[in-house]
């Protein structure tokens, strides 16, 4: 599990691979279609694909010659969970800060009230 997440992050460290993932998020594509916008060989694109495949980010179907590349979007859940945990911790911290700020507001209100009562 840990290794898988590390592989996903490593796979996405490369801008070309991130771009390929972004395009596959729209639709499946063949290797040739994926290679089109890049000034690199189909072989180089195949290598990038292999990295994405090993990380579990994409799969190749067995559809005769076409063999389109498919994005395994659920892998992103792993990454999302990873940062979500940090976000949740920060959120809990800030909810406590909300409570402190509410107390501060109550304090200043009651002080004002006390002063008003003293004055009357």
């Amino acid at each position: 599990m840990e290794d898988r997440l590390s592989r996903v992050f490593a796979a996405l460290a490369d801008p070309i691979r991130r771009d390929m993932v972004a395009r596959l998020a729209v639709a499946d594509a063949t290797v040739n279609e994926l290679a089109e916008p890049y000034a690199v060989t189909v072989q180089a694109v195949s290598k990038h694909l292999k990295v994405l495949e090993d990380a579990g980010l994409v799969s190749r179907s067995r559809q005769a010659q076409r063999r389109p590349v498919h994005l395994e979007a659920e892998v992103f859940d792993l990454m999302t969970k990873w940062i979500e945990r940090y976000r949740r911790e920060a959120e809990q911290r800030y909810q406590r800060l909300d409570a402190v700020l509410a107390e501060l507001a109550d304090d200043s209100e009651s002080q004002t009230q006390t002063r008003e009562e003293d004055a009357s």
Partner: protein
Amino acid sequence: MSTTTHHETTIAANPDLPTIEIVREFDAPPAAVFRAHVEPELVKKWLGPRRLEMEIVTWDARTGGEYRYVHRDDQGEYRFYGSFHEVRPGERIVQTFTWEGVPDGVALETITFEDLGDGRTRLRGVSVFDSKEARDMALSSGMEVGVNEGYERLDELLTAEK
């Protein structure tokens, strides 16, 4: 937006820079949010993870001042320290942050308090680490998972998930 709105905390970890940016709004004026960051008895009430007890050893929140605190749980102690580089009342705090467990690592944190009017504040905290690896370690701290490489715009992924 009403005062009962639940505020979302957003986090962005840039794939190309060793930074973490947190943004959160509060239903309190900048002066109050600032106070909660500089008065130790207020800081103690919210800063640490809930499961940990926080002891403030030193807290001198002024430009050129310093801080040092300890978080404790049944597993042990976690000690942190840093300098207050700049403390500008109601506007911003710039400080360093080091966990003694990784004494060679230091993050530079800039916290700004933006006045949104109507007694509301947008807090923005940017932490700059000395490497992406250090940033990822900080993000994954407390987790069994250690991630040292690679990144995607996770904030965008989070948004896409909604």
